[in-house]
Structures are given as structure tokens and as C-alpha cells.
């Protein structure tokens, strides 16, 4: 019975993560994703679609903690085998942390772009900007064309 309980809990948590991601994640036209962490905190990265287009990621230049940026400012550079591509700020805000693991393991972006391959976290009061970004279904439609 304990095994059943544990299995049920794990499945519940996985479903909860999926639901959370579905409702709290938005997408930009430049293929960034933004996850609301609550209390005006957000986490960002590039989407699975973007990492597939770029190919093997070999280096990530993360933003500086404390840096303030406006929506659409280039804030990070992701380098694949032949191209250095800008990553853009999805909303006005200031950076509170960056993913240190990317320094030694940039391939995390290829392996788990929506999870362990996150790039940075920031604080923003611009809920309206978040809400105006694409939902998952809108982004899926966008990337079809």
C-alpha cells in the first residue's frame, strides 16, 4: 500500500508540474519561455524549438545578477557550433540569479531546455507584459508556420 501511495504521489507531482508549466509558462516570438515563480519572480530560458534550430550549444553568456533590462533587450548570448544568438528579455525586470551550471554544461540547454537548462531568474512587476505573451497552444501554433 505504501508503494502505491508513493507511486501515486510521484505521478501527482509530475502532473502538477505539467499543469504548473502549462498555466504559468508563457512564450515569446523570439522563442524564450518565461515561468512565473510567484511574488513577481520569474525564470527564463529558450524553448525546445529554439535549441533544436540552433544545434549543439557550446557556450552561454548569462546576464549579470543585478542587471536591469527592458523587454526585448538582448540579455544573453547562446553560442552553437557556428552561431552566437541573442536571447531577449521577455519582460522589464532585473536579474536575481543565473544558472551557474551552464558554465560547465551548456549542453543542458539542449538536453532539458525547459527545466535544468534555464538561463536566468528575474524580478518584474509587469504582470501585464507576462499575460500578453503567448500561451503554450499559441506558441505551438506559431512554431508550425
Amino acid at each position, binding site marked *: 500500500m505504501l508503494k502505491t501511495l508513493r507511486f501515486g504521489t510521484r505521478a501527482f507531482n509530475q502532473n502538477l508540474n505539467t499543469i504548473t508549466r502549462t498555466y504559468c509558462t508563457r512564450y515569446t516570438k523570439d522563442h524564450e519561455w518565461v515561468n512565473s515563480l510567484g511574488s513577481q519572480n520569474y525564470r527564463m530560458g529558450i524553448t525546445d524549438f529554439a535549441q533544436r534550430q540552433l544545434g549543439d550549444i*557550446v*557556450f552561454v*553568456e548569462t546576464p549579470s545578477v543585478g542587471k536591469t533590462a527592458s523587454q526585448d533587450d538582448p540579455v544573453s548570448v547562446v553560442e*552553437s557550433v*557556428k*552561431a552566437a544568438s541573442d536571447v*531577449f528579455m521577455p519582460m522589464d525586470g532585473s536579474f536575481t540569479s543565473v544558472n551557474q551550471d551552464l558554465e560547465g554544461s551548456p549542453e543542458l540547454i539542449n538536453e532539458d531546455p525547459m527545466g535544468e537548462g534555464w538561463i536566468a531568474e528575474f524580478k518584474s512587476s509587469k504582470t501585464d507584459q507576462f499575460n500578453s505573451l503567448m500561451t503554450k497552444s499559441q506558441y505551438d501554433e506559431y512554431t508550425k508556420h
Partner: protein
Amino acid sequence: MIRLLRLNRFPILKQLQIEEALYRTPNAGNWIIINNGTPEPIVIVGATGKADKLVNLDEVESRGIQTMKRFSGGGTVVADENTLFTSILLEFETLKQLFPTMSSSTPSLISSTSSSSSSSSSSSSTSINVSNIYPKDIMNWSANSFYKHVFHEHLDFTLQENDYAFGKQKFGGNAQSFSKHKFLHHTSFLYDFKDDHMMACLKQPDKIPEYRQNRDHLSFLCKLKDRYQSKDHIINNLLQTINNLPTSPSIKEVTLKEAEQFLLNPHPKSNQLFDYNLKNWKDIINEYNPIIKN
């Protein structure tokens, strides 16, 4: 309009500083830059900049050769007066106007692409949506729609993964930078090179293209001088290709001074020089980026 800047034996370090300024300045316009060689040999690594992994630093230092890191992605090259540099900096909107339907693959030209490429699987020309343009699309476009015409005399011209080659021998290496509204695609063409510099200065990189098949530098590379009697011939082909671009955009030849104006705009500066004493990268301090005393 596309601005054309022609340089002759202009230091590539300064050229890259200008290109970074053009790339980072909003509304800088469209540019094509051709530079016939750089006066002194120099090792150029891509933005990743792991100098110790890519370059035999002690050897390079003993030969009095500088090592720089450029702001764009891509591999490592030893450049000198026999390297021909071309850079294409275009706004995506301009690319759309010039080539409203771009083919994502042309089987006769593309020999192989990396496994991560999703567009290489089509067996015939496929129009792609130019509102979503990615590095591999520009790489394919550059070969199919531009450099195929520059090297039209040679039917074995091909794009091997990310390199321009005759058959399986590379003669041109590419690097790109992508931003919201524009891209930069620049190429080092090996008209000639000192065999000794290549072998001694560069290490075999960790990640190599499949088609290289573990060949050393001299077996993998070829020289344009074995196919063209002069660099001028290639430059003339380049100019002809530019003048024959579809929809005939206006091409305005500009002076170095006009390009240098963009250096005055505040912009991030990522090009760096390697300090052999400190064993680290340092900012470039020169007339383009002087130390400002407060």
C-alpha cells in the same frame, strides 16, 4: 540599400571591432564588407574563447602572433595577408525582400548537415517561412544563393556542414551572429596559408565536423590559389554577385570613415585579445577603443 565597404590589408582585429559596432547598433543598415587580407598573421577564435583548448599558445607566442577572440560564434583560424574576408550583415526584412522564398536544402549542393538540422531531411527544395530564420537557414542560403555564384567556375563547390568546400576539402570557414532584426555571416577564405602556421598554431578541436574524418589540418584544407590565379579574380566574382542580387537593391560603396562612425555609438564590446602573460583575455585598447581618463 546595401553599403559595400572594400578594404585592402586592413587589420582584421579592427575590422571585427567595426563589425561589432555595426551589428550592435540599431538601424545601422545593411552591409557587405570585403577585406583583401590582414597585414600580420593572427589567430582568431570564436566567442567561446577556450584559447588553451584551441590554440598552441606557447607556439603562437614564440612566433610573435597575436590571438584574438571575436564576438561571433564559430571556429578557429590562422589569418594573414592571404586570407580573404567577407562579411554580410543584413536585416531580416531586407533578406525577405531579396529572397522572399528561400530553399532550405538543395541536394546537389548540400553534402551533409549536422544531425541537429531539421531542414536537411527534405529531398527537394522546400520554401521556408522567412519570418523564422535560423543559423542553418542562413548557412544554406549563403551557399545556394550567393557563394554558388561567386565560385561558379567550380562545380564541386559545396557546403559541407558549416564550411565552404570543394568536394571534401574546406577552403572557407564561417561564423554567424543572430539578433532580433539582423544577422551577420562572415567568412574567412583561405586563398593561401603557411602550412607551418596551421599545423603548429592550431590544436585539433574537440568537436570536428563529420566530413573531416579526423584528417589533420593540411589534409582537410585546400587553397584557393590552386584554383584561382589571383585574389582579384575572386573579388571580381564577389562584386558581380553583389551587383546581380535579385530585385537589384541599390549598392552604395562607402568609405572606411563612414563605417568608423558607428564605433562612436555605445555598444557592448566582446572582441578581446589574449594576454600571454596573464594567460587570460583582455579588452582591446586601441584608437577604436581608447582608455578614457576621468
